[in-house]
């Protein structure tokens, strides 16, 4: 298979088939927390996609250029979390300086992204799957971010309508969100047979 086909298949697979939120359970906290309104969900999705692309590429580079040649795999987790925290800090400073309006609307989300498990999770999965070239790592990071945005926006859309539904008192709030997510995960299972490698 030539490189371009592999990249496209990888992209589709990370967005739909191996969706980080609905099949790998990564980033559940913001998924439950900020999926109340669709514009907030979209903002969160964009911020996460950006940081994920940056840290996915950076951690791959550090892992392959620095840690592996020097035999320092023990430090991998510490390095990864440092890279993510600094990427978030960098994005925060950059956005605050050049796009103040955007910064206002992101507000609380940006610092929260450091502890978003989807980002660290994706870096670890790239390492676990043994991705050996930078382009695939970048495509997977962008795809992972888009998959996260897709899941959180679908969820926000459903929850806006769910407000009009009559939910049993005990299930209101988080429980019904989780059950909805379960049904959504079932739907995403339908993509599972889409690509045969």
């Amino acid at each position, binding site marked *: 298979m030539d490189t371009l086909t592999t990249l496209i298949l990888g992209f589709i697979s990370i967005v739909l088939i191996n969706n980080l939120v609905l099949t790998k359970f990564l980033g559940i906290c913001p998924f439950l927390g900020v999926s109340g309104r669709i514009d907030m969900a979209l903002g969160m999705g964009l911020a996460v996609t950006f940081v994920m692309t940056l840290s996915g590429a950076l951690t791959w580079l550090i892992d392959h250029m620095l840690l592996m040649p020097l035999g320092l795999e023990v430090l991998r987790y510490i390095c990864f979390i440092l890279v993510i*925290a600094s990427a978030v800090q960098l994005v925060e400073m950059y956005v605050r300086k050049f796009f103040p309006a955007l910064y206002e609307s992101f507000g609380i989300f940006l610092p929260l992204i450091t502890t978003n498990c989807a980002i660290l999770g994706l870096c670890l999965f790239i390492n676990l799957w043994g991705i050996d070239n930078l382009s695939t790592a970048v495509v997977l990071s962008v795809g992972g971010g888009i998959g996260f945005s897709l899941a959180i926006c679908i969820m926000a859309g459903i929850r806006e309508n769910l407000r009009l539904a009559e939910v049993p008192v005990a299930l209101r709030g988080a429980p019904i969100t989780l059950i909805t997510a379960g049904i959504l995960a079932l739907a995403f299972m339908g993509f599972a047979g889409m690509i045969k490698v």
Partner: protein
Amino acid sequence: MPKVFLAGLWSENPVFRLLLGMCPTLAVTTGARPALTMGVSVIFVLLCSNIMVSLMRNLLRPHLRILMFALTISTFVTIVDLFLKAYQPEMSGVLGPYVPLIIVNCIIIGRAEACASRNSVFTSIVDALGMGFGFTVALVVLASVREILSHGTVFGLEILPLFKSGGWFHGWAMMAMPAGAFITLGLLLGLVNVISRHQEK
């Protein structure tokens, strides 16, 4: 002190009440054994990081706090990861990247922030044990429900005899899949809500 400990088990249970640490809760609860391993790992990391953070609580600067927490936690998580790889290689394979993901488990950062950076070492230890046990119990309960319904077993012990080995129970494949995790946890949260409302009356 017993109050701090018991709060973690029920009234402030990290999974059922505070909705913290959802990723591992959903991902490793396909069986009771991985759930227990994850629970014990989290207890260890939580205990160590709470002690460390409590010891250095007077040195912390506000803007570098989260970074210091993350670095402390990732050190202990690396220890757990290497330990599991060395002594429990099979279990380490099953848990996969969810062991290193303990670093971003909100329970641990949350406790460092809410408890350990403000209290003495002793209080932090008790708090870590209470929260850790509460997390483990929640994980094992959820995992047992899913394991019974999908494979008819708990910790590998047969509870419901499966049809294919001569019994009557048909395994419920969905329970072992992501969808089963979401729906079971949703229903369990509902159950906890019902119980706590009865207690209040």
